[in-house]
């Protein structure tokens, strides 16, 4: 991976490091629980897990300020947890219950939080890219200094509307960070089979948009790059592209047997590059935390996740009247 790596002497505080550990662990445990609930039939339809990619959203969010916006496609649970949405509300949306963020009417792929400036959760690959530029357009129009994180995958990077958006974002200097979450497989198609350029961020050069690749398994490298990107956008210089090279451990969705890659490839990534283990090592070797401290965090996260599953199971199904609400404002 040709991505930028952070030095192993991070310029972060113990509190920050612990926060990243906690936030990434919450996503992982949450997703494992979601997988379990899916297996039990409590979650229906499509369910795309974020396991393996945790450092991307946690590193990006580390550079976000209050009021900054984010938007992504359907592998969205991690983004929601990372921006502070309530795990209960997210899990209850997955089970299609009244207590879910969309009152059970959106599901895994379509979830929103106006309060947390999370603009979805979109089911059509790459449709969120112009939408995200539109959010940034509104911020520029209102001159409020806000930045929008627009996430999309290596698969979406081959949709035409991405480049329509790059062009307009560049000519209008929109304050948008395009985050390409390159997990190397567009569903079952490896990047080399679908994409003409090995580093997708280089496509921005054609539009005059600066960008870089970053090691997406290293939360500190992601954070550092994110600060650079956000600084660029906030200073009025227009869009910036971050290609975050990451890896998903699970299949594309719950029903993907993942025959397009070897078990060894996944295992190697898990054992050598795991983003959570990397921070765990930093915390322990830097003596920022003891095994006991981390165990306590693990336990606390497990309780939060179990509580969310309990809420998602016991929250009632939406009332039938809800069928007819929210069609028109």
């Amino acid at each position, binding site marked *: 991976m040709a991505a930028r790596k952070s030095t192993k002497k991070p310029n972060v505080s113990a509190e920050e490091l612990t926060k990243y550990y906690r936030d990434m662990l919450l996503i992982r445990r949450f997703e494992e629980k979601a997988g379990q609930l899916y297996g039990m039939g*409590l979650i229906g339809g499509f369910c795309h897990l974020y396991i393996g990619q945790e450092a991307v959203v946690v590193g990006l969010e580390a550079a976000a300020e209050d009021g900054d916006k984010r938007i992504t496609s359907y592998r969205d649970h991690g983004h929601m947890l990372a921006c502070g949405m309530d795990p209960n509300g997210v899990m209850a949306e997955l089970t299609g219950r009244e207590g879910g963020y969309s009152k059970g009417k959106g599901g895994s792929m379509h979830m929103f939080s106006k309060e947390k400036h999370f603009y979805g959760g979109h089911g059509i690959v790459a449709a969120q890219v112009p939408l995200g530029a539109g959010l940034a357009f*509104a911020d520029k129009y209102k001159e409020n200094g806000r930045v929008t994180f627009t996430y999309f995958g290596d698969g979406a990077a081959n949709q035409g509307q991405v480049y329509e958006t790059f062009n307009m974002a560049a000519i209008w200097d929109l304050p948008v960070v395009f985050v390409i979450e390159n997990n190397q497989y567009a569903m079952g198609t490896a990047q080399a089979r679908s994409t003409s350029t090995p580093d997708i961020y280089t496509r921005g050069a054609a539009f005059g948009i600066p960008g870089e690749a970053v090691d997406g398994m290293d939360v500190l490298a992601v954070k550092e790059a994110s600060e650079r990107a956000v600084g660029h956008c906030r200073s009025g210089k227009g869009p910036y592209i971050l290609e975050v090279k990451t890896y998903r451990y699970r299949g594309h969705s719950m029903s993907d047997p993942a025959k397009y890659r070897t078990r060894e490839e996944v295992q190697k990534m898990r054992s050598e590059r795991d983003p959570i283990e990397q921070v765990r090592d930093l915390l322990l070797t830097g003596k920022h935390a003891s095994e006991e401290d981390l165990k306590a965090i693990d336990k606390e996260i497990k309780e939060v996740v179990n509580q969310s599953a309990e809420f998602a199971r016991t929250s009632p199904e939406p009332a039938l009247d809800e069928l007819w609400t929210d069609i028109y404002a």
Partner: protein
Amino acid sequence: MATEILMPALSPTMEEGTLAKWLVKEGDTVNSGDILAEIETDKATMEFEAVDEGIIGKILISDGSEGVKVNTPIAVLVEEGESLDAAPAAQEEAPTAGAPAAPAAAVAAAAPKPQPEVDTSPDWPEGTEVVKTTVREALRDAMAEEMRGNENVFLMGEEVAEYEGAYKISQGLLDEFGPKRVIDTPITEHGFAGIATGAAFAGLNPIVEFMTFNFAMQAIDQIINSAAKTLYMSGGQMGAPMVFRGPNGAAARVGAQHSQDYAAWYMQIPGLKVVMPYSASDAKGLLKTAIRDANPVIFLENEILYGRSFDVPKMDDFTVPFGKARIWREGTDATIVSFGIGMHYALEAADKLAEEGISAEVIDLRTLRPMDLPTVIKSVMKTNRLVTVEEGWPQGSVGSYIASEVMQQAFDYLDAPVVTCTGKDVPMPYAANLERHALITTDEVVAAVKQVTYR
């Protein structure tokens, strides 16, 4: 505490599967993420991973078992030092998702029927001064007035600013409002429709001009999947208060790709409102209403009508509400329902019919969603005969929807089958004579009214 490992559902439709192979045995320690077993669904063989850590206490379903129902316990996981006796007999986590609402309740939630009341109030007070205005000017005036009143309204589209509109609708707007609010886009419909929709999510009120609605097909995913559905999908948290407008339907001699009426397409979408004005006063009053509406509005104009002049009231703030049809001409023998440029044929036909002693009532729907069916039904109750007129194609036309509703709501009042006059079921030809035949004609409307009145 011991926990049961249940047969997982590994696809949206899986109800049972084959436990092909265990990859762990009793006594093995497992961590979350470890592969426990291979399970065959109807589509594929999938690996099944552990969620919790522990020791495999007992395997309940052996290798090769077929037809194992989802949620059947297949193994028991125990913690270190724990005996198998501690395993619960049955977990309280039994699934409930398979038992949703009873079907009887779904019937109770059927869509509400249209209101029987009909609003017949005039669009403006009697005695108001009127000014002859073209549809083109009326549209421009509507945008300018709303932009003056609301800083968050802006216009975006191809050639809307410096060129002042491919059809000169936005004349003078750049001068008055500047390039921040009157924005030329590149030729990139899908992209700018998405950007405008995102801006609407964030609280602005975009007016998107499509040079023609033919080009909006490039953007239709953003219009329907993003603009129309987000309010619902977000449980009411955010929507798209915006207008998509531009000329729709056939112009003259521009051939198949530039001559299509999208009224029936957009009318089908819950979450959209659809407007198709005929007169200049409606163009102005309805566009002002559209810009203020908190929902995405499809505003279908017509190039041939742009230059036509109509009376427009001289009022500070003239608006026309959605969902209120206008009766242009009262009559007793048959009802003609139309909208947009179809009104031209409907009114011309009514004049000709009057010369032959047939009295036609002519209704302009003005908005297709919401649609003022009560006014149509009330008229049919009087005339007992109905003809619909539109430029679009026959299959799945606006007229076929109206015919179906009238049949369901006023069957006993009909003295003849409803006739739906539409454009011909062909792509638009270029040749002048063929194009004339492809479009709806006044003579066809006259013939249709004679058919339903048995004259």
